[in-house]
């Protein structure tokens, strides 16, 4: 029997758009810009399109929050090599900081959100500092423990509102600001991080993931690089947490919930790890899906898991990786 093998060839236009020649014709510019425009335009139009369905406009906010946490997970796991299950910690810390600043200290909303992201980022980095020497699953376990720890501390000591949480946070002036603020934050983080991982410091981070021993031999303090990366990830995580607290006008124990640690990982798995934008695409699929499945009541978690398993089995590389390949290359069967 004649054996056949699939051969992948770069499209001519992909080769032409690699360098400066990308700007030589409109077609080539569009080849590069179109996927980005689709994403940006799509996100900006989403609240307008969904004007007729107010409930879904609120889903957008949650979707963006999950997408941001998923980006932070993807960044740490696939570019620095730290598998961090502390999404719940970032959201909780950010939310509580924002609640303290806004509800107790009366700092206006548009200052309390960035300020609590900054303070929360520093706080989380300090928490992670002792365990940065850990690798792989050991780091994951420690980071998974932190949100559980904080829940118990707040419960047991009855501080920061105890089990009731802190209420009375300022809400956003109107729903448009609510929508567009988080969409803009998401887009800035998305394109900012994509830029960062290709800058020199981003390359050093990727080198730490590949082989930290030879980074040490190159005269770079690996712990310092890791702590910068953790600060960036926890900063954006806390930013989304602060936003969420203001969206609910309440900061409570559920901000530390494991959902914020687990769902972003599922989103990265579905969307495709190591591309950053995959995290956003994954959230775009999973968050609305989980809303749709509310019709099924308690049965929803079964269907949800089933879909996840199907994704893992059929397209384990992730949708975004698959689509990127299809966009840049074509395939043909050749004889071996």
């Amino acid at each position, binding site marked *: 029997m004649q054996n056949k093998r699939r051969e992948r060839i770069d499209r001519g236009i992909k080769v032409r758009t690699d360098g400066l020649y990308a700007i030589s014709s409109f077609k080539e510019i569009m080849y590069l810009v179109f996927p980005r425009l689709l994403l940006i335009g799509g996100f900006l139009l989403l609240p307008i399109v969904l004007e007729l369905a107010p409930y879904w406009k609120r889903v957008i906010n949650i979707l963006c929050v999950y997408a941001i946490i998923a980006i932070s997970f993807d960044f740490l796991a696939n570019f620095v090599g730290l598998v961090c299950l502390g999404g719940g910690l970032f959201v909780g810390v950010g939310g509580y900081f924002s609640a303290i600043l806004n509800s107790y200290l009366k700092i206006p909303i548009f200052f309390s959100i960035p300020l609590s992201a900054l303070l929360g980022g520093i706080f989380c980095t300090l928490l992670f500092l002792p365990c940065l020497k850990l690798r792989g699953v050991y780091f994951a376990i420690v980071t998974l423990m932190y949100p559980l720890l904080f829940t118990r501390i707040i419960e047991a000591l009855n501080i920061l509102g105890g089990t009731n949480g802190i209420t009375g946070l300022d809400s956003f002036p109107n729903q448009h600001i609510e929508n567009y603020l988080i969409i803009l934050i998401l887009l800035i983080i998305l394109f900012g991080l994509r830029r960062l991982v290709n800058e020199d410091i981003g390359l050093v981070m990727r*080198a730490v993931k590949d082989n930290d021993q030879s*980074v040490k031999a190159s005269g770079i303090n690996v712990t310092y690089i890791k702590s910068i990366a953790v600060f960036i990830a926890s900063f954006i995580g806390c930013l989304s947490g602060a936003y969420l607290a203001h969206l609910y006008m309440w900061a409570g124990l559920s901000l530390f919930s494991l959902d914020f640690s687990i769902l972003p990982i599922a989103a990265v798995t579905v969307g495709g790890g190591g591309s950053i934008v995959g995290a956003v695409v994954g959230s775009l699929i999973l968050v609305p899906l989980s809303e749709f499945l509310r019709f099924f009541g308690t049965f929803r978690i079964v269907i949800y898991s089933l879909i996840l398993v199907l994704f893992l089995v059929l397209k384990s590389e992730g949708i975004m990786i698959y689509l990127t390949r299809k966009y840049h290359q074509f395939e043909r069967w050749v004889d071996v």
Partner: protein
Amino acid sequence: MSILVVENLTKSFGGLKALNAVSFEVKEGEVFGIIGPNGSGKTTLINCITGFLKVNSGKVFYRGKDITGLPPHKIALMGITRTFQIMRPYYSLPAFKNLIVPLWSKRATKLGGWRGGGKHGDRDTVAVDILEEIGFERDSKVPYKPASVLPTGYLKRLELARCLALRPDVIFCDEIFSGLSVSEIAGLLPLIEKLKIEGVTLIMVEHRLKELFKVADRVMALQFGEKIAEGDYKDVIEHPKVKEAYLGSEEV
């Protein structure tokens, strides 16, 4: 003048003494060879000097300064770098981007990489320059290919290139000739001569004695973590204890 002085270095793993009171000196600008059968503690010696392992006792002086127990990156910043026996490139990055890491370090941003380039953020060009010097053809696609697809010969060179990018004073080469063909080694030898002329001190751990003979000024032999001979290559090779270590003793 001795650039590196090692005094009574001892390292044990549990009950096993991997290094037992090893002392030697390396002069500035020379090529110093370390030979010994498998398991004699050559790589452990490198790991101890460059800070990757903590020593049990003994001292290491670099230009008269005690560097024992410093973390590896601090020792690297002083100008002591190393290659790894099992190559450790950054597989997800293109070959020339591998050199961005040492070029980004404090030492290279202050002094510049090899021959002073890369101070002003022009790291990509400097990286390709270094790769060309070390045998990557500039006009070919090789420097731009991901490290994961490069053959062993190139990866060994990449290890050395990563050291050069840090503008080192001392390079520990952990078996850079192993796994290379004769012609590939012949390509590396002039490079080592060139480094010697530029005043870089090289400490080479080798199994390939014939090739080491061509470049080494002095050689030290280790067995079971102990120094058994030191001196000119010929003297060491003819030393009865070295012969015994490699070939076994005569009276069985």
